């Protein structure tokens, strides 16, 4: 099933979906596995697996450190591919996406990367430093393999850019609620609601709202406005404080 079909199907039964995120190999693949099991048990529908990169320029300090520590432990792209395959088999009801930076695909060869991702059971890609203008090969290759290359809406975009990205994104559109990088606070306000409404006008795809979702109140706010709430940095902090169990407990309280 395609990413979009999966989201539509889940949305027919639920007011909003949850998408979580973790950095592969941080603090370790074994700990990732426990956290992922807790996420799945808490009913999370979509999970972003971030393949670590040495220069994660769109990420805030917490994710930057997680990337660096994973690489210090020796995480390789090949390990991430194998681990992803294992996860997709073990948790067949959950949809997994890769999030990483373009050099990881480029160095491996875009075609080989997409082939391995597809074989592993990955449904989509989020590549924050690959703008639409440079994404031709990735978009084409994704289409051929039934993968979705997800583009990003931001509050600095003008309507013509939103329309372009809204038309070329695949599966869903990842919406950023504010300026800045991951892991900073977002103001869940009427202005944000208006921003999401503007995003909605420029695509027929489901909308995922990320960057700064930190609790049940934020998720409640998003119901009826966005289709998917993304929880990223918050979970790394929670994991540091309370482990996989803490992550699971937090997520099961969100809806």
């Amino acid at each position, binding site marked *: 099933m395609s990413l979009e079909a999966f989201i539509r199907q889940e949305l027919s039964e639920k007011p909003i979906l949850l998408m979580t995120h973790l950095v592969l190999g941080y603090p370790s693949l074994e700990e990732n596995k426990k956290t992922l099991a807790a996420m799945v048990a808490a009913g999370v529908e979509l999970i972003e697996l971030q393949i670590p990169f040495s220069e994660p320029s769109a990420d805030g300090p917490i994710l*930057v450190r997680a990337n660096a520590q994973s690489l210090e432990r020796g995480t390789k792209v090949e390990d991430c591919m194998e681990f992803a395959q294992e996860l997709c088999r073990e948790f067949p009801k959950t949809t997994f996406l890769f999030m990483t930076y373009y*050099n*990881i695909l480029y160095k491996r060869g875009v075609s080989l990367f997409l082939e391995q991702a597809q074989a592993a059971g990955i449904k989509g890609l989020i590549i924050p430093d*690959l703008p639409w203008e*440079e994404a031709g090969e990735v978009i084409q290759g994704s289409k051929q393999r039934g993968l979705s290359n997800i583009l*990003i*809406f931001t509050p600095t975009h003008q309507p013509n850019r939103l329309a372009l990205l809204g038309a070329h994104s695949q599966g869903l559109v990842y919406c950023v609620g504010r300026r800045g990088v991951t892991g900073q606070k977002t103001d869940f306000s009427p202005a944000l609601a208006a921003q999401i409404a503007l995003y909605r006008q420029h695509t027929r795809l489901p909308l995922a709202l990320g960057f700064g979702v930190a609790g049940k109140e934020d998720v409640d706010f998003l119901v009826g406005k966005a289709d998917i709430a993304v929880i990223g940095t918050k979970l790394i902090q929670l994991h540091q404080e309370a482990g996989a169990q803490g992550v699971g407990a937090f997520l099961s309280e969100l809806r």
Partner: protein
Amino acid sequence: MELRAKQGYFGEFGGMFIPEILHRTFLELIQAYEAARRDPSFWAEYKALMGSYSCRPTPITYAENLTRHFGGAKIYIKREDLNHTGAHKANNVMGQGLLVKRMGKTRVIAETGAGQHGVATATMAARFGLDCAIYMGKEDVERQRPNVFWMEKLGAKVISVTDGTQTLKDAINAAFRDWAGSMDNTHYVLGTACGPHPFPEMVTWLQSIISEESTSQMQALTSRYPDRIYACVGGGSNALGAFYYYLDQPQVELVAVEAGGKGLETHQHAARLACSDATIGVNGYKTYFLQDEDGQMKDTHSIAAGLDYVGVSPILSHLWKEKRVRFIAATDQEVMEAMKLLIQKEGIIPALESSHALAGAFREVGALAGDQVVLINLSGRGDKDIFTIADAFDDPAWEEFIIQKAELYQGRRKP
């Protein structure tokens, strides 16, 4: 000849691999830059500013003693070391400052490795009345206290970056993160001819003032073009500025000297094009990077912090591939020898970065004929790097002086 990108690319190198949040900011920057290029009053204003504030045109010195010493080609030196703040960095920074004024922004940010670009940017911000934040790897903050001292005195906020390897590339990432949130009032003064389009082209254009001057200066001095031009390459801005107006003169050989560190065979170096360790990758722009098989950037090494960088200007990658620029590398040891020789023979104290260009030239100049001419771009002066250079010389009297100074400060501390 004009060095202009085609849709952001020079051959297969360059591009604009930026997060969507900065898309509009880059479009606005490209517009402001293109408008400045179309407007002849911009270049006139820029030259007038550099003439009244930064000792331009910088002179060319005939190195008579060195010429005699090597017994080969005549050696001329373009004195970018005489710029205000001590290096060619001032050219780029003051030019971008004029652009900031035209864009109506009120704050500038910059990355810095050794601190020269940070000091230059802080100087420009003070002169133009702009708020200023400088991102610097924690390791560099600790190594380069004198530059941090001056940046702070110039009114800049120096932010110590504790991510990653805590050096230049991490400072660049941190500056981009700042920009992703602050672009409405902030311009990022990128320090070299790297990064996403339009930075490589824009910085090269601002640095082209070096060869705009040197072509007519060399004509006046020698009535001809030089046979070879040598410049050091970190990101590549001083080399591109020194080469610019010679690119369409095929008889002028252009030689770029990279940091050979502890020797190319040790892999502890920052040579991207002078050896085969680097491969093509993408990190904001497409060029040769020192990276592993997964695309993770490696640690680099150079005695000169300003050359200690994983990537190289996409314009230089293109010119190298086109065989227009020849790349060689000089080791830390050769660089120290070259520096000593310039100090002793000509009474000029070069920066460690610029000493790479000297080392490259000194290796080859003796084999050239006496009627040939080489021009070395001396990108910066070294006296401001006295701590680093004294360490490199391992000077016992200096060490003793610092110990005594430390004891003096210790004595002043309240128990």
